């Protein structure tokens, strides 16, 4: 038995969904994602606003990272479509940047800080081509923007957690994208790094870019972000922070009760384990 088989949808057929604006940087329609047949994100519809800082909030296991990976084709979608400025991810890839969780890489890897930031430029450099000094200058500028210019030649295993996060941010800046997905950029960083990160995010917004951040510190959401996307295995609410980030929606998002969707997810997982 195979539930939630991956299938691709012809982008042209999307013209039949007039509610999706082709100018939205990110347009998610009916996206469901399953791990080992257990759905972890149900039927997500979401349009990201232009020039905005969006917090993706929700409890552990709500599917926040899954949402990002699903949008970026890093994991297969069971159903649904994702469009960037009305086109497929493949065609818009250079306009989309991704900052994974800090723990996702091995910080003992034998490379320097500048090497890591330069990796953000690889997409622009392309296959086989060497790294030019122009790219190095651009990467240095990004390091300067996050206050790490003096660390360029350091090996990455000598960095603190906050510095690692800033290196990742600099690498994202080096991509010069117009839409960014960031997975917990504020996790476990000191106050000075938080300030640097939010300064950079605000500058990106001023340049008309959109940043979606998985964010855990609910207290700082209204201060940092002008939009929120509240997830708990499905979209609970999405919109401008002032109207959307309400007690009622928070209760729904973080409520401890097992929803029927979760129960049926577990039933599906169990059934597939049992080989039904």
């Amino acid at each position, binding site marked *: 038995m195979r539930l939630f088989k991956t299938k691709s949808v012809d982008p042209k057929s999307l013209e039949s969904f007039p509610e999706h604006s082709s100018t939205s940087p990110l347009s998610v329609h009916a996206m469901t994602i399953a791990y080992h047949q257990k759905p972890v994100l149900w039927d997500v519809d979401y349009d990201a606003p232009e020039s905005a800082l969006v917090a993706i909030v929700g409890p552990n296991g709500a599917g926040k990272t899954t949402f990002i*990976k699903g949008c*970026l*084709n*890093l994991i297969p979608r069971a159903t649904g479509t994702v469009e960037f400025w009305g086109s497929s991810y493949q065609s818009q*890839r*250079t306009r*989309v940047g*991704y900052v*994974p969780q800090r723990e*996702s*890489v*091995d910080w003992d*890897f*034998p*490379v*320097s800080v500048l*090497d*890591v930031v330069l*990796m953000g430029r*690889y*997409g622009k*450099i392309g*296959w*086989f081509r*060497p*790294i030019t000094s122009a790219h190095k200058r651009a990467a240095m500028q990004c390091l300067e923007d996050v206050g790490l210019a003096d660390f360029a030649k350091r*090996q990455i*295993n000598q960095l603190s957690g906050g510095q690692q996060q800033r290196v990742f941010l600099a*690498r994202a800046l080096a*991509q010069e994208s117009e839409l960014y997905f960031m997975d917990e950029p504020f996790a476990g960083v000191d106050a000075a790094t938080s300030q640097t990160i939010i300064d950079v995010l605000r500058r990106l917004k001023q340049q008309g870019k959109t940043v979606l951040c998985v964010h855990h510190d609910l207290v700082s959401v209204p201060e940092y972000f002008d939009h929120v996307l509240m997830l708990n295995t499905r979209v609970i609410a999405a919109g401008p922070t002032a109207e959307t980030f309400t007690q009622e929606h928070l209760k729904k998002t973080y409520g401890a009760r097992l929803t029927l969707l979760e129960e049926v997810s577990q039933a599906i997982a169990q059934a597939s384990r049992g080989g039904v």
Partner: protein
Amino acid sequence: MSNLHQIISLDLPPLLTAVCAALSCTLLGNFLLLRKISLMGDAISHSVLPGIVAAFLISNHRDPLTIFIGAAAAGLLSAVCIETLRSLGNLEPGAAMGVVFSLFFAAGILLMEGAAARHIDLDANCLLYGQLESIFWYPPTSMADLLTVDALWSLPPQVLTSIGVLIACTLFVLLLFKELKLTAFDPALATSLGFNATAVHYLLMVFVATAVVASFEAVGSILVIAMIICPAATARLFTDNLRVQIALSAVIAIATTVLGYFLGAFGPELVGRTESVSIAGSITLAAGFFLTTAALFAPQYGYLGRQIRHRRLALQMALEDVLGVMFRIEEARGLASPANREVMVETLGGQKAVDMGIAYALREKLIEKSADNFSLTERGRIRAQDVVRSHRLWESYLVSRLGLQADHVHDTAMELEHFTDQPMAEKLAKRLPNPELDPHGKKIPSLNSVDDES
């Protein structure tokens, strides 16, 4: 036959083959090491066995190209099986590799027995241990003709193959250096930037399979793994820079092969024995020797270096503890009050550490000995004051800023004081409501007050 001519005929071809094979394996081994899949070389080298036998059975003769293709195909198939098993079965990589290569190897053995039953003789030893010793060359007798194209083309096929594979591997690493680096460090980012991490992985596997098969002649299927892992792992112990690591690993690979070759070829003679030893075996021993030496003596990551740093720290801590106790005694009983060893052991615990600290302090002339007692010298007092200052600043900080109980902070401060330099102490002082007194009501000594008073 002149002596030189004999060397060119008998020693040069196998040595050249072994060096080229070792370099190919090492170059790629660096990237397997970075991906933490060094065992992949082992897996592929075992998995090619059924491919070789099958190619032999199908083609029914020893055509090197057919066998090469069969071997490489089997190696690649094993890489695919490992990936599939890993993602489908949710197995950890080591387990997936172990299962796949032992199954492939078993299949190879069964196929070989089948071949033997059909009176086709396949030499298992040659596959497993290589046949370096059997590679030789009949070069032109005159030295002038030696470097002509015709003469070089008459080199044994094993030599030409290993040179060709080395060139291919070098080009691959040079051309795809940044792609290999990126996909090893952050596959998700690589894929999102348009560098398909899976594609690069399999491309690397194609080259690993090729290098492994080409290295059979040199070191055999079992010992080729040493060439993939050892030089890269040895180099990694010396540097945190990927380019340096790769360059160093290449040097180590050459050194290993040359040393191993001459040990194997001439070692027995040197100790007056006549029997020969396997050159592949002695090369592998040399590789192991280099790795062990590096693990022991590499400055930063070697065992000895770590021990020395550890001991130095322990010594410094013992010294500072002794100075701290003596400073507190002076505080209680007046300047230049003597302290004896028993008091220190009682306060600090640990006789060994106290003796170590006293010996070190005496050597550094921070304390003086008179009869059974010790007293601080001028310099020792300044140093001791810094230690006690750091200690009490930390106690105050832990109580006033972190809200710990005053009677809980002594032991923590005892640790932290050893890692606090002056700038950090001043930062601490600035954050305290009262940088004069510690939580127990004792005076926090100021910076170099001894100097001010004198």
